[in-house]
């Protein structure tokens, strides 16, 4: 189609439909942008006070939101591998931890600039994706999960070893990452908040585009039936490699942000438990829905925070119970169930509106 031939009116109508089609998304983005201001209003903090990075309710909420955004990036990348491409990987925490540790070590021990570090993280992410992909043509299904688990646990062991303690801090973790001044989360919380939010939105849109692109469609085909995709003449290995690389880059970026935000990187981020967290987040939201990963991350972090606040030590136990209950009773996750039920819910709404306004709508 020729771009120039689109008349202004047609363009605006397209824009309108685009706007209307994603109304929910726009509202969420708007709410997220306004979140610091709203919380400051609620807690009675003045806007200038907020902009000057005074500590308070608003700053705390921003911190929590930043953690959620980072987790959402991480869960999003896992959803691309598991939900879209159908690869069950148990080594996903390694993707995250490599980004986090590399950022910390390069900034702290080597004094690199942020941009050089980012470039290095990117390179490392691509390398580790290729490392994971090396085993792909040989092993499938559960065996792939085991091999990735193996690779990730070697990384976990290495990062905790005493030989690396000068850089990685053994089992205490990497402490005191020196974030560059202009993006220091303690001094410029608001800036960090919007950087993370922007990155998350950008990544989400990129992922949406990826899934709807021909490449992404082939990835879905691999999930549904790899043999058939092969039969149709697609070299599935390359498509899996692309998905793995994209996921690895995203997760490493999330790890990088994590290291910058919390000046501490604990070895927990490389452990099996952190992979399970990714699984949990995608599961809560709905596997393969992308937006589910974001919702899942938010619920996971808020639930963890709330339960820890109320029950203290027993929070992990309760989280596990919640997890089991979700698996048993909400098999498609929140977004997945919502999508399945969307039609019923919409008609229910219309009936309700009809009842209120006295104008029953014909089905």
């Amino acid at each position, binding site marked *: 189609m020729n771009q120039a031939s689109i008349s202004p009116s047609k363009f605006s109508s397209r824009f309108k439909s685009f706007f209307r089609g994603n109304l929910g998304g726009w509202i969420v983005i708007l709410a997220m942008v306004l979140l610091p201001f709203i919380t400051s209003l609620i807690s009675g903090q003045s806007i200038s006070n907020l902009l000057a990075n005074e500590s308070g309710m608003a700053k705390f909420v921003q911190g929590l939101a930043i953690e959620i955004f980072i987790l959402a990036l991480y869960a999003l990348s896992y959803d691309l591998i598991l939900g879209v491409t159908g690869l069950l990987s148990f080594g996903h925490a390694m993707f995250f931890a490599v980004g986090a540790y590399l950022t910390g070590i390069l900034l702290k021990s080597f004094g690199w600039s942020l941009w050089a570090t980012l470039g290095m993280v990117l390179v490392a992410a691509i390398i580790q994706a290729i490392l994971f992909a090396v085993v792909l043509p*040989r092993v499938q299904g559960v*065996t792939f999960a085991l*091999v990735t688990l193996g690779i990730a*646990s070697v990384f976990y*062991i290495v990062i905790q070893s005493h030989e690396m303690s000068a850089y990685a801090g053994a089992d205490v973790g990497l402490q005191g990452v020196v974030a560059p001044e202009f993006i220091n989360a303690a001094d410029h919380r608001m800036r960090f908040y919007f950087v993370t939010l922007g990155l998350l939105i950008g990544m989400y849109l990129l992922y949406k585009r990826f899934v709807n692109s021909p490449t992404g469609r082939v990835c879905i085909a691999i999930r549904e039936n790899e043999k058939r995709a092969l039969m149709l003449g697609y070299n599935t290995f390359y498509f899996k490699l692309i998905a793995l690389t994209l996921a690895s880059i995203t997760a490493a970026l999330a790890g990088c942000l994590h290291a910058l935000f919390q000046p501490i990187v604990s070895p927990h981020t490389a452990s099996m438990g952190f992979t399970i967290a990714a699984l949990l987040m995608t599961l809560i939201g709905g596997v393969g829905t992308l937006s589910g990963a974001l919702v899942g991350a938010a619920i996971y972090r808020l639930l963890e925070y709330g339960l820890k606040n109320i029950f203290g030590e*027993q929070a992990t136990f309760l989280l*596990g119970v919640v997890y089991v209950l979700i698996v048993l009773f909400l098999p498609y996750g929140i977004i997945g169930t919502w999508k399945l039920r969307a039609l019923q819910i919409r008609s229910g709404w219309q009936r309700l509106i009809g009842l209120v306004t006295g104008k029953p709508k014909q089905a």
Partner: protein
Amino acid sequence: MTSFVLYLRKNRTLLITASVLLLLLLLAIQGMETQDWVVTVLRSLSVAAVTFLVASGFSLIFGLLDVLNLAQGTLFMIGAYVAWTVYIRPDTFIDILTPFCFLIAGFTLLPLWDFLASRLTGKKILVRLWPWVGLLLAGFVLLFALRAYPITIWNPGVYSQSPGTYSLFADTGTRLIPPAETFGDGSAVLVLGGILLGSFLLAFSLAGLQNNRNAARVRKSLRLPWAYSVAFLAVFLVGLLVHLFNTPLTTAIVGLGSTWLFFIAILVALLTGVLLGSLIESTLIRPLYSRPIYQLMITLGLSAVGIELVRAIWGRPEFTMPKPEIFNGAGVNCPATTLAGVFQDHCSTILFMDSRIRVYNEIFIPLVGLIVLIGIWLLLQRTRIGMIIRAGVQDREMVEALGINVRRVFTFVFALGVGMATLGGALAGPSMGISTAMGESLLLNALIALAIGGLTSFPGAAVGSLLVGLMQQFIIKYGQIGIQLPFLAEPFKPTPPLVPASTVLLMVIILLVMPRGLLGRKE
């Protein structure tokens, strides 16, 4: 002759891999003195036996049910904790028996509840609602009744009553038993009746739920097979008798001595595993057979819940489980030089070629592993249920089509697999030490062993466990004495982190060469 050549050609990769592994082993043996490698091989047998106990259950479950039971490591740990409780604190064990028996009692009368639930008809909403109300009520009753029942337990927060302290005392030979708790307020009859009532209510409501789900059909007559009523009576009587003769029973069981207690502990751990396994399979795994990936997630969730539960009850610190007398003697003739000496003085170690071999770790555990291996092998090869299991591993649908109730076999296999894991935990308690992290490393070991041996292959689990054990122990030994590598002046000493890393590396290499593992089935 031709068939032999054909066999060689068919299994070329396997034979090459096996010979490379053998060569590596020979090289490893060459690098150290005879006594060193004998001890190392014995130690690796010990590790292999414990790994095998977890891995074989895992492989059976995965082979037949297609469930990757990642809770196996946690169940292993629970086995160790249960064995510790029975072994160090038999009084607690006796105390728990009564409420446990009374809780079970309600479920032995399931046909009766089924019948009653099917006769309960009325408004649809009431029929749908009453089981939930019943569950709630049962929860309340049990909450109060179980709380009021006195169980002498430890307190992880207080040093003098922490599990670690009890272990220490047991290690020195004096078994510290705190004074038994008594009923504070409320009579015994009321509390016991409450537990029984709660159990009845629970079983009744669950039967009602089940009835609602399976489109309730009204049963005309009650058929209560006599076995059920006998089971009910037996469980009830055991519970009551244990309650009545609590104190004499405790003194009697403490008086048995640590050897008997230890074997009782192992048995109880095994039974706990079997019970837990059948419970998990029938309630949590069974609804999810149509959604395979969710089973995996539920086992993950279970393992997290299990670890937290253990932390809440036994506390976070690690503690040890002393070895029983029969493996811990220190007579005049110890360390023994012959096997006869072991039986006479119950020596803890044997002197073999100037190096000490621990009887429990390096002889008893591999022996149990071997017995279990042979036992399961016989079960699989010689019995009808074993035949069904083997057939099910090959083609589940076909077995179902032949009219065999595979679901019941599923429960059996799951219970068996979990039972073996808890047995492994109980055995590993004295040798590994007890901590909440012990399951994690063992699960990794077992997974590696399985991947090496072929996921669904039972002999593969044994071979894989053996390889993992050998690899780990030889690396540890070389970490002590150093290894002379070609281009290095100083001997290279592998550091402790290399131990798990080496097994993982072995797994990755073997999987890259043979994606189905050494003995895995070809598709």
